[in-house]
């Protein structure tokens, strides 16, 4: 039972990673840059949700809308101000700029919100757990423990947050896949990631498409922020950096630039992290996640779903 519960927690964490990894992989596919600030957009989303949810006037749905809007606008602004002027510059300059943006967001958060972590109220606070399994009595969905009087404790509990993270992520991934394959804007994104120059010659607005990519990536980060802060109810200026980096590992694991790859990589990485935390050592789980990255890059640098690219002179 504990294995199943860990596995589900891993899938839940993994689907959050997958949402973040989608942002990385889409931006990498189109703009050919590693957006280091992506993790910090999660942090900003977390604070936006925290501030609006603690305000009395704001209902939950509105605070979700505000969070997504804030992140989307932030992502587009960062792209326009910091990354767009450097589109044809050496990769080192772009990478350092991205680190600068990440550093800037962290420090703004440090100054305005202080370094003390804040307790985040889960969006599913007060709701009963999604599933409880009692040995000999069967399973109970969406209910508080009906056997409290008999003193029976569930042998397996899956919280609402875990369930929500999986459901929301799957829904978003399906929507995103449909968007990219079926709509004009989505196909423009694919064309840009294939060959930016040729796409421009075909009349695609490349700058607009890149902005759109950043907008979508940041919106996904906002959703991930809310889900993550609900499952791990704490927020600090450094909340975003580690999940951001791990999501990048997931994107590389799945094959950078590949959207199904990011989903698979994210879920696998989440499962690896939770299982190693539980069965090996909680102290070493981060190290194990990075070992995965290194092994992947040595054995199969293009990831699970990636295409092999040969370099032309």
């Amino acid at each position, binding site marked *: 039972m504990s294995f199943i519960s860990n596995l589900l927690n891993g899938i839940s964490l993994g689907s959050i990673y997958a949402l973040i990894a989608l942002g990385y992989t889409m931006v990498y596919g189109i703009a050919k840059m590693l957006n280091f600030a992506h993790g910090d957009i999660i942090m900003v989303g977390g604070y936006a949700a925290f501030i609006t949810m603690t305000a009395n006037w704001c209902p939950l749905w509105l605070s979700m809308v505000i969070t997504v809007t804030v992140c989307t606008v932030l992502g587009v602004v960062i792209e326009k101000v910091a990354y767009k*002027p*450097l589109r044809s510059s050496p990769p*080192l300059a772009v990478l350092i700029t991205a680190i600068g943006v990440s550093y*800037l967001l962290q*420090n703004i958060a440090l100054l305005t919100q202080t370094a003390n972590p804040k307790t985040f109220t889960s969006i599913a606070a007060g709701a009963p757990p999604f599933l409880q399994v009692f040995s000999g009595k069967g399973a109970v969905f969406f209910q508080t423990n009906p056997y409290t009087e008999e003193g029976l404790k569930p042998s397996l509990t899956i919280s609402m947050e875990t369930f929500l993270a999986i459901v929301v992520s799957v829904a978003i991934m399906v929507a995103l896949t449909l968007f990219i394959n079926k709509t004009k804007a989505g196909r423009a994104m694919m064309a840009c990631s294939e060959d930016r120059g040729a796409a421009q010659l075909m009349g695609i607005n490349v700058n607009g498409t890149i902005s759109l990519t950043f907008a979508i990536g940041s919106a996904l980060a906002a959703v991930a922020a809310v889900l993550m802060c609900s499952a791990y109810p704490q927020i600090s200026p450094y909340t975003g950096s580690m999940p951001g980096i791990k999501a990048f*590992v997931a994107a590389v694991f799945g094959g950078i630039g590949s959207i199904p790859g990011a989903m698979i990589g994210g879920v696998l990485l989440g499962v690896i992290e939770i299982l190693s935390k539980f069965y090996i050592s909680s102290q070493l789980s*981060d190290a194990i996640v990075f070992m995965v990255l290194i092994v992947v890059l*040595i054995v199969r640098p293009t990831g699970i779903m990636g295409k092999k690219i040969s370099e032309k002179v």
Partner: protein
Amino acid sequence: MKKTTKNNLITFGGTLILCVVLGILMQAGKLNSMTMGLMVTIGIYIIASTSLNLTVGVLGELSLGHAGFMCIGAFSSATVSQILINNAGAPNWLAFTLAILFGALMAAIFGFLIGIPVMRLRGDYLAIVTLGFGEILKSLFNNIYITSDKNGLHFGFTNPPKNIDTATKLEILRGPKGTSAPDLTNFWVVAAVLLICLIILMTFIDSKSGRACMAVRDNYIAAQSVGINVTKFRLMAFTLSAAIAGAAGALYMHSLANMLPKKFDYNMSILILVYVVLGGLGSLRGSIIATIVLYAIPGLLRGINQEIVNYRMLIYAIILICLMLWKNAPVFINMREKIKAKFKNKKNEAADLTSGGAEA
């Protein structure tokens, strides 16, 4: 004299003079203990930033795990110095010298081992993998326990070792609780290590290997096609950079009463990177000046106004972004050229006027 030699002499001479002047002031008792402590820390950061400049500036690859190498140097040197002083009864100076060398050696070994997979990669991948290794090294030392007693050394991984003779128990590494190395770092040691490291770095950069690294940086494929063993030279520079970072870590460890592994995190790597980038990629002198200025100013301002210090990191970040845009964005490059052209025109006009005046 060659231009590079002259440049190196200026950098080295400047650092030497600075060290001597500060040393004399210190011996004369003109500096308070806070300034002296600040100088030691600045010196250590200079060693770290000049060594990172070898990877970022000369090799042209972004390493985000520099603090990890400092971590290795710090904790392995602390183990050696504590064992030598407490168990072998070695004199302080000998123990400390051996500890710094051991720290640098361990960092070099790890740098080499890590470099083998890392140096096959480039660009963004390399950056993220070095970041990963930095985190791995940090969590490694978060889990290592070494304790000594009359029976010898006991090692523990993830848990402290058991069955230890409590009477003679001496904890050397305490996992996440860090370690307390003897306070041996002083200004003269830092100055000496700094000068030695500068000589090593300058010699390397100006050698055939260093020039090969720069050729790889400027054009990877062209360098390969003229027969440069790309991986070998990159690995060499990376290992050297790691070794010097290890020495810096060893000094840092022995300058503080208690050191936790989590201090050597991603943010420390980024801070050193900020010094390198703002000082100028590939310029050792730039790294030295940037480290002194960026580290000393907030330290000195702290006495005047605490508020300003809080904004320090924010300002660094903004400068970092603006500098990259100013240097690399086509818009600003054009703008710079226009300004330059204008100045030239004005000069030419002025020259025309004077010459015209002379004719008249």
